[in-house]
């Protein structure tokens, strides 16, 4: 069978050097065209749009996993380094000043948003995974609601058990006053996947503080509850982190669609009114 598929990160240095050279070449070529009084805007614009399309193809490749289109990781590298080049090209093309035309302003805004969201996404996908792994849990996003519910039911079961087995309301009250809130609590949309949420610490501390009222059985249950609280924390970490990893794409991809359309229109208008001169 084919030799084992060790998916190494192949020569990141090569990518750096290549794109650095490409960038240098771009800058020089732009200056040269400008000096030669050639329609530099037309050239850079066309190149930029072509590059944007090429970057967009990354999404198309994801839909064709059955074709031998080289590794997606290679595509992503191209997407990332190509993305930086696109930003460079953008500034070569549009200059560093904010455009005056309304259409151009919209286009520039969209482009910069796409670029920024891409950069953010790159950062997130390098930073968040380790946080998720560190939490010790490994879940698929789709299973999270199910497990949240599972935690709630298990906790409730424990509380009921506690109520029956030890005729004291300590844990019941704890459940009503603290645990229930925490179990139903969902972290905010832009919460970060590390550290314990205050609510979690609060719940734990209040459980610990109740220790003095527990009898032996209650202590057992309390320690079990504690495990579930930890589990809930892990679950939230997973939710937050994985949601972040998916959220940024809600900006990046839809705006890319607009970018491609706007870019085309801009190009046509420009050619129409200036023949790219």
């Amino acid at each position, binding site marked *: 069978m084919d030799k084992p598929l060790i998916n190494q990160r192949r020569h990141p240095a090569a990518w750096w050097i290549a794109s650095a050279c490409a960038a240098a070449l771009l800058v*020089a*070529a732009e*200056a*040269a*065209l*400008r*000096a*030669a*009084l*050639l*329609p530099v805007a037309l050239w850079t614009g066309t190149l930029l749009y072509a590059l944007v399309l090429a970057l967009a193809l990354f999404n198309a490749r994801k839909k064709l996993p059955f074709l031998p289109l080289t590794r997606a990781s290679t595509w992503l590298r191209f997407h990332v380094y190509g993305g930086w080049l696109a930003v460079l090209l953008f500034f070569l093309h549009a200059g560093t000043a904010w*455009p*005056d*035309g*309304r*259409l*151009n302003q919209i286009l520039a805004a969209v482009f910069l948003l796409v670029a920024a969201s891409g950069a953010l996404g790159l950062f997130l996908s390098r930073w968040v995974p380790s946080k998720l792994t560190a939490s*010790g*849990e*490994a*879940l*698929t*996003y*789709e*299973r999270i*609601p*199910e*497990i*949240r*519910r*599972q935690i709630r039911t298990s906790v409730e079961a424990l509380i009921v058990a506690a109520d029956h087995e030890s005729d004291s309301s300590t844990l019941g009250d704890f459940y009503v006053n603290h645990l229930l809130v925490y179990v139903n609590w969902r972290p905010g949309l832009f919460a970060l996947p590390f550290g314990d949420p205050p609510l979690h610490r609060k719940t734990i501390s209040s459980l610990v503080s109740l220790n003095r009222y527990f009898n032996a059985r209650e202590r057992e249950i309390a320690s079990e509850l504690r*495990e*579930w609280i*930890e*589990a809930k*924390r*892990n*679950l939230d970490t997973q939710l937050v982190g994985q949601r972040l990893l*998916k959220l940024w*794409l*809600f900006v990046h*991809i*839809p*705006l*890319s*669609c*607009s970018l491609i*359309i*706007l870019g085309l*229109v801009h190009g*046509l*208008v*420009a*050619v*129409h*009114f*200036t*023949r790219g*001169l």
Partner: protein
Amino acid sequence: MARFFQLPNFKRDDYQRPNQKWGCGRACDGKGCQFGPDAKGVCHTTGECRPARVGDRWTCTRPDTSGGPCASGPLPSGECCRQIGPCQPVLSLRARRGRWSWAAGGLTVAILLVLGGADRERWADPGPLSSAHALSNARCSDCHQAPPAGPGGPGAFAGGFAGAFSGGRHPTGVSCLKCHDMGEHPMEPHGLDRISLTRAENTVKPGAKGASHSIVLAMARIVSPSDASRECIVCHTEHHGRIGKVTAFSDKQCQVCHVAAFDSFSKGHPEFSNYPFDRRTRLVFDHAKHLGEHFSDKTVAALAPKSCDACHVASTSGGFMVVRSFEKTCAACHGTQIEGEGRAGDKGIAFLRIPGLDAATLDSKGHGVGEWPSDADGAITPFTRLLLSKDKAASQAMAALSGVDLTDLRGASDERLAAAQALAWSIKSLFADLVTSGQDAMIAKLGDIDPAAERGQLRAMTAQMPRDGLLSAQTAWFPSLFTEVANYRAGVMPVSKMAPAASAASPAAAPHSAVVPGDGDLLDDKSPVAAPAKPKAAGDDILGDDLAADAKPAPKPVAKAAGDDLLGDDATPAAKPTSKPAPKAAKDSGDDLIGDDAAPAPKVAAAAPAPTKKIEPLKVNDAEAWTPAGGWYRSADNPTLYYRPVGHADAFLTLWLSASAKLSSGPHGSVAEPLFLALSDAKGPGLCMKCHSVDRVSGGEKVVNWSAAGPHPTVHEITKFNHEAHFSLMDQKGCQTCHQMKAQSAYLTSFGDNLDPAHFESGFGPVVKASCAACHNDKVAGQSCQLCHSYHVGEVTAKISGTGQMKPLE
């Protein structure tokens, strides 16, 4: 110790299917049913299984993984006994993202369609125009040609796009040239034609020291298209806001075309060969000689200028140090020279002269020329020759008579005599024209010779030639000119006789001379006596001229004698009166006639009876001395009309010089050239050529430089320099900081016979590049090409529109 959920029961769990668009609505409760929603997102689940009909009964089809067939089995109705209502399937996150994308795309298109509507141009507008063009902000079509016919409304954008690559609405030079007049080659580099271009390029050779090592430039020169003509908008980019720089142009953009590329002005720019002198000065002024020699002369030391700005002042643009007016500069020393002060020979210019002619021989040999002043002497003036150049006969005659002494024709051949006769009559005819039609005749003749000349110029060339001056000259030279010329033109040749000699002895003449006093009366009231004497002329008697003409014969002998006497000694008139009172009277009266003063005659005659008492009569100044301020006069000693220049910039001289210079290269060169030479003679009257150089311009035409170099309001020089801006930077050497005067220079050799302005010796050394580069480098004052060079050179003006509709405002 936490709990972990990472390990589902793989045995029980089905695959997780993130690829599916819809997920079970109950999955979040961990109660996802085995069926799941369909691809449309609809849940068909009613129970835990979908019972299968076997024969007439239903059986449970619940799979083992869900517990296998249930005990109770399906309901009779065929429904599962364990009912679970359909769930509300949930859309997967990814599918939701897909919807967002479609929405974004759709929204964008929608917005564009809206913007593509009425004011689409406002949206497509990439930004405000520079303030100079700001008015066109609302009128795209000022620069962008009308769009290709497309559908109106929102569709128009698309329509426009269709034409984007075909026609498009890009502004072309046409749009710009509507307002900007950029000369004949607006799209060519520098607005120059290719010939001048190549010349310009070749002035800088590649590989020079300090040649550029810029990679960018090297690349640019490779890709730069050979055809250098460009649309305006290539360089002049607009829509960069009110203060956007429309004329920005980088040094590299200059360097791409130029043969030798160098890094900067301070590094690689060639040394100035002889900047700022690309030609000799128009005015001949040897600074070194003046400052070195002339001004050191005690007599003029006081007049010497103290600094350069005594003679030079910066032009408003600062580009030129123009020479101050003649009066403020040269006049102090050279003003009187021009008027002819201290000059030997005529101070006036002989304009018209009746040449010496051997009239006797001609008459005797049957080539009568009628009257001819016996005191005629000297040659035909170049003016006369020029005025005669349209007279074929005269020209032929002059050709035939070249080298013949007209004052002695005794040995001359018949042809020559005939030629001489023809010439004589041409001259008389010309003179007659000038006398009769005056300035108009001269204007007409000059007009014939130089049809290009403007009327105003021609009029000025007459220098207001006076009517009476010519009349008196005619009376003196050709008393019966009109009859003779009239007859001559009618083909009647006069009887050959030396009229003056005969009249001296004839009795017929006596009564004439006797009635001299009466003549004076005749001037007042017409006498019947005179009438029969000249019945032919009587018809014309109304005119005083004719009376005078009639009167002429009488005093002739006297006049003649007087004329003769005058030849002898004009200086001692006092000796005469006693010996020949009558003649003197006659002469006087003759003189008077010239002086147009009839009055004194009777008085003198009256005074005649008492000769004993010696009274000095009034004396008319010698004509030349009579006209120090310049103007026309007639010489007493030969039949010549003179013009004396009125001072600097005398219109007559300058115009005749310019005209003759111009004509000297034309068909009339043979006659114009001598005239020009005569006038431009360094010693000649006016001394114009002493200071004003003559250039031979393209086409061999000669041009007199009447004024020093100065700025032209509409011409852009390729190099610009603001003198004023640099005054404060000069050290104690003053202007010599940059313009170093050569102590010994062959400056003057640039002039004289040399008519080529480009071939010259400057009195100053070229400006040294280092002196500019001291400040003009990146650190101090900047050194971009455009700092000193303008791109568009030659006539560059803005068109003024609407003058056509000018009319008084109501």
